[in-house]
């Protein structure tokens, strides 16, 4: 673990851990709502904020928060209308966002390709103390919303109409979730970059739900996997000198595959074992057997 004797590696690790915890926590709601790829779109929009920040020599992170929050609210309004023309509106927003961002970065005095690449694919090794402070504050906001409001956000993501008949402030909660998505994207921008942020929102959740039975458990396991991927990715990137953002995402995808394969092997093994023993089958009271899915 000698790489962590360098301060910049420690800062990279902390920043990545913040991302590893927040992105899956928020992502659990997006996956529940079957909007897994919305985070990717918000990431595209955030690039315009980065461009504006660089061009005006203000904080690219602050500008990214503001622009992506505005974009996320627009996306939520399109979703709320729920019409087929919504797809086109989202395409305009997302591709307008990323091309606007590339365009603005090109106009700024900071227009190196390396700089653009850093925002698109992450550059955790350049995390400054100030970056870390901003990430910690924004990350705390994301965790407060996703953890403290879980029952309410679960309700609106699971069954929006029922939530409305329960008298919940559905619209306000939807907008809050949208803005929190934007904040999460900005938190993750340093560690994995705007084009890979969605991976950390979705892949740990997909991994977790292979083995979990409930929502709360899925969120907890996804956050644990996100933390492991972040730490493992930074360690591997520092040790083997690979691209850190991409390495973190590859570790996350690797853990998905390991769990999927492990589960398949385990199921095959148990099936072989039950076949050898005569089935003690518990009859499922009055239910047609084909609709009672096998539990493992």
């Amino acid at each position, binding site marked *: 673990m000698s790489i962590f004797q360098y301060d910049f590696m420690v800062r990279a690790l902390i920043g990545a851990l913040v991302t590893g915890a927040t992105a899956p926590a928020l992502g*659990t709601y997006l*996956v*529940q*709502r*079957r909007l*897994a790829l919305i985070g990717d779109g918000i990431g595209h929009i955030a690039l315009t904020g980065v461009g504006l920040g660089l061009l005006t020599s203000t904080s690219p992170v602050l500008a990214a928060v503001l622009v992506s929050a505005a974009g996320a609210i627009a996306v939520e309004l399109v979703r709320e209308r729920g019409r087929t023309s919504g797809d086109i509106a989202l395409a305009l927003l997302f591709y307008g966002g990323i091309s606007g961002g590339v365009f603005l970065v090109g106009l700024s005095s900071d227009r190196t390709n390396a700089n653009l690449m850093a925002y698109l694919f992450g550059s955790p090794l350049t995390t400054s103390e100030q970056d870390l402070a901003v990430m910690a504050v924004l990350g705390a906001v994301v965790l407060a919303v996703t953890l*403290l*409001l879980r*029952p*309410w956000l*679960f*309700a609106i*993501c*699971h*069954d*929006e*109409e*029922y*939530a*409305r*008949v*329960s*008298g*919940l402030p559905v619209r306000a909660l939807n907008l809050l979730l949208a803005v929190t998505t934007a904040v999460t994207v900005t938190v993750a921008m340093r560690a994995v970059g705007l084009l890979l942020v969605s991976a950390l929102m979705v892949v740990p*959740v997909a991994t977790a*739900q292979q083995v*979990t*039975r*409930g*929502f*709360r458990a*899925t969120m907890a396991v996804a956050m644990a996997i996100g933390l492991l991927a972040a730490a493992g990715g930074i360690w591997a990137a520092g040790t083997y000198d690979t691209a850190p953002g991409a390495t973190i995402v590859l570790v996350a995808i690797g853990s998905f595959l390991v769990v999927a394969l492990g589960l398949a092997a385990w199921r095959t093994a148990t099936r072989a074992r039950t076949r050898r023993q005569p089935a003690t089958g518990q009859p*499922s*009271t*009055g*239910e*047609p057997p084909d*609709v*009672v*899915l096998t*539990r493992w």
Partner: protein
Amino acid sequence: MTVRNEGGPVIEAERLVVSYGERPVLHDVDLTVRPAEVVAILGANGSGKSTLVRAVLGLVPLVLGRVRLFGTPLRRFTGWQRVGYVPQRLGAGSGVPATVRELVSSGRLSRRGFLRPPRAADRRAVDAALAAVGLADRAGDPVGTLSGGQQQRTLIARALAGEPELLVLDEPTAGVDAASQEAFAGALRDFVAVGGTVVLVAHELGVLQPLVTRAVVVHQGRIVHDGAVPRPAGHHADPDHDHVHPHAPEEARRWP
């Protein structure tokens, strides 16, 4: 706070007109439901039954007409803890597993203050709702692993968890196995026994027949019968059937 209207109608819907886009689906529909009534809304598929109950709950916009719940105009109604809704089916399905208990607990939020942690009373209400539909032993199972009938019972438990005074159920027994129908009828009987009011959309009443106090038949977006429960053998869509309109014009004058 909701204005109590002890003894007054639970639902007053007057001259409702609803359309989806250009196509009108409800034409000038009136419906009044009084406390402790068990009203069955009957009719063929596509006749507008779901639209009617969804309009009463404010889930579809009205072109014309007005709705009062517990005496309060829908727009100003805040007493949602008094209402339990069981939708026809559970949306598109969730992308993340949820346990039966997690789903049923979400029905308690109408009685749980915002950001307030659950109290013992909340947990007891969820336990009681699970027991009422016979799913206490499945509380920790993912909803997705239950049969269709058990999933429907989960939705009923979710509505019961809020300890409502009015239950609005949209085809709770459609395509449901016999065990679940029986469990459901039992839960409803208990609810009615303590004075609960029920609006029940159904295609066929089946085991629920003895509980129903009044039937409303919807045919092509109009109410063609309102009164006694029609005999089971397909005569209920008969437009010659007795018309009973409990809210006569003099009642309508109470509206401003």
